[in-house]
C-alpha cells in the first residue's frame, strides 16, 4: 500500500474512535441527566405510569428482531442475497463472491456486539446485587446556598455541554441573548438571558445548502396538492408508463 503508512491510519482511527466515544458519553450523560435526574420541574396533575405489558410486548418484539439483525447479520445478509440473485440476477454486475468478505466482517462485528451486550447485562446484575439492600433516598440536586431552592434551579442541558463546548470553542462558539440593563434604570423591567452555540459550519454550509434544496423541492410541491382528481391522474399516469414500458420492452 502506498500513501499514508498503516500505523498512522491505525492511530488516527483510534483517536477518532476515542473522540466519538467521548462525545457519545457526554451526550448520553446529558440526555439521561436532564431527563431522568433531579427534582420534577413542574407539578404534574396525573402521575405518569408505564404502559401496560401488552403495549410493551410489540416493542420488545421489534427490539428482539433488531438485535437479531445486529448479532446474526450473516443470516439476514444470506437471505437478502438470495432475494437479489433470484429477482435481479440478470441486472447484477458485481461479483457475488465479493460480498463474502463483507459478510465475514459483519459476523465479527455482530459477535463483538453480542459480547458487549452480555457485558452490560453482567454490569447491571452486579449493580442490582450491590444496591438492592442499600437505602434509597431522594435528595435535592441543587442546594448550594439557596435557603428555599426552586424546582427550576437545576442542571440543564448546558450544564453538561459547557465543558465540551469550550473544548471545541473554535468550531462552536458560545453566544448570548441578553439585553443589558442600563445603569440609569432604577427599576428594570423583566429581562431574559439565554445562551446558544453558534455553529459556523451549520450557518455557512449546512443552512445555505438546505435552503437551496428546499427552494428547488418547492417547485414540486404542486404534486402534493390535496386534490383527489390529481391523485387519480398520477395513478393513470403510472399505469400508462408501465404499459408503455411493457410494450416497448424497457428494462430498468
Amino acid at each position, binding site marked *: 500500500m502506498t500513501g499514508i503508512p498503516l500505523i498512522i491510519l491505525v492511530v488516527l482511527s483510534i483517536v477518532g474512535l476515542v473522540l466519538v466515544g467521548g462525545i457519545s458519553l457526554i451526550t448520553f450523560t446529558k440526555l439521561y441527566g436532564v431527563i431522568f435526574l433531579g427534582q420534577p420541574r413542574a407539578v404534574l396533575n396525573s402521575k405518569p405510569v408505564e*404502559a*401496560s405489558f*401488552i*403495549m410493551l*410486548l*410489540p*416493542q420488545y*418484539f*421489534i427490539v428482539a*428482531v433488531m438485535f437479531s439483525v445486529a448479532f446474526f447479520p450473516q443470516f439476514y445478509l444470506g*437471505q*437478502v442475497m*438470495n*432475494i437479489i440473485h*433470484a*429477482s435481479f440476477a440478470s441486472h447484477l454486475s458485481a461479483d457475488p463472491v465479493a460480498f463474502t468478505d463483507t459478510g465475514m466482517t459483519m459476523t465479527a462485528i455482530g459477535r463483538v456486539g453480542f459480547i458487549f451486550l452480555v457485558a452490560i447485562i453482567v454490569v447491571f446484575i452486579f449493580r442490582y446485587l450491590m444496591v438492592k439492600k442499600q437505602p434509597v433516598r431522594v435528595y435535592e440536586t441543587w442546594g448550594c446556598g439557596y435557603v428555599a431552592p426552586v424546582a427550576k434551579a437545576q442542571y440543564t442541558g448546558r450544564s453538561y455541554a459547557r465543558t465540551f463546548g469550550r473544548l471545541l470553542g473554535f468550531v462552536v462558539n458560545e453566544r448570548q441573548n441578553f439585553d443589558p440593563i442600563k445603569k440609569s434604570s432604577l427599576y428594570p423591567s423583566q429581562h431574559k438571558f439565554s445562551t446558544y452555540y453558534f455553529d459556523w459550519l451549520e450557518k455557512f454550509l449546512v443552512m445555505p445548502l438546505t435552503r437551496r434544496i428546499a427552494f428547488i423541492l418547492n417547485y414540486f410541491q404542486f404534486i*402534493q396538492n*390535496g386534490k383527489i382528481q390529481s*391523485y387519480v391522474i398520477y*395513478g393513470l399516469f403510472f*399505469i400508462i408508463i*408501465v404499459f408503455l414500458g411493457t410494450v416497448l420492452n424497457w428494462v430498468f
Partner: protein
Amino acid sequence: MAEILILSFNLLAPISIVLFAFVNLRHLSFAAPVILTLQVFIASWLAFIVFSDGSLEYSYAGSFITGNIPIRIDYLSAWFILTISFTFLTGAWYGIQYMKQYRDQSGNLALHAIAFILAFTALIDICIVQNAIVFLVAWEIMALSAFVLVIFEHYKKETLRGRY
C-alpha cells in the same frame, strides 16, 4: 396447499367485516388482533414455503373482464410479505391498549378494525397478484382503507386537513 392458504387468508377479511359489525366492543378489541394474527401466521407460512422451496405459482381462470389471474410469490414478494406482516402484527397488538381511550366510539372502532384488516389483506394481495385489473382493485382497497385509518379522528379539523 398454497392455494388453500391464500384463499383462507383472503376469506378472513370478509369474515371479519361481518363479524365486527355484530360483536360488542369488548370482543372487538380481542377479535381484531386475533384475526390479524391468524392472517399474519398464514402470510408468514407462505413466505417461509417460498424461502425453503422456491417460488409459488398458480392461476385463477378469472372473468372476461380480468382474463387469467396469475398468482405468484417469489423471493422478493415473500420478503415484502414478511416485512408488512411484521409491521401490522406489532401495530395490531400495540393498538389493543392504545385504542382503549376511544372506547366510547364503538362504531368508529369497528370501522377502524375493518379498515386495518382490509389494508393488510390488500397489501399482501398487491405483492402476489400478477394481473393489472386485480392489482388495481387491490390497490384501491388498500388506498381507501388506509384513508379510513388515517381519518380515525375525523371529528377534528386538523385530522381532515392532514388526510392527504
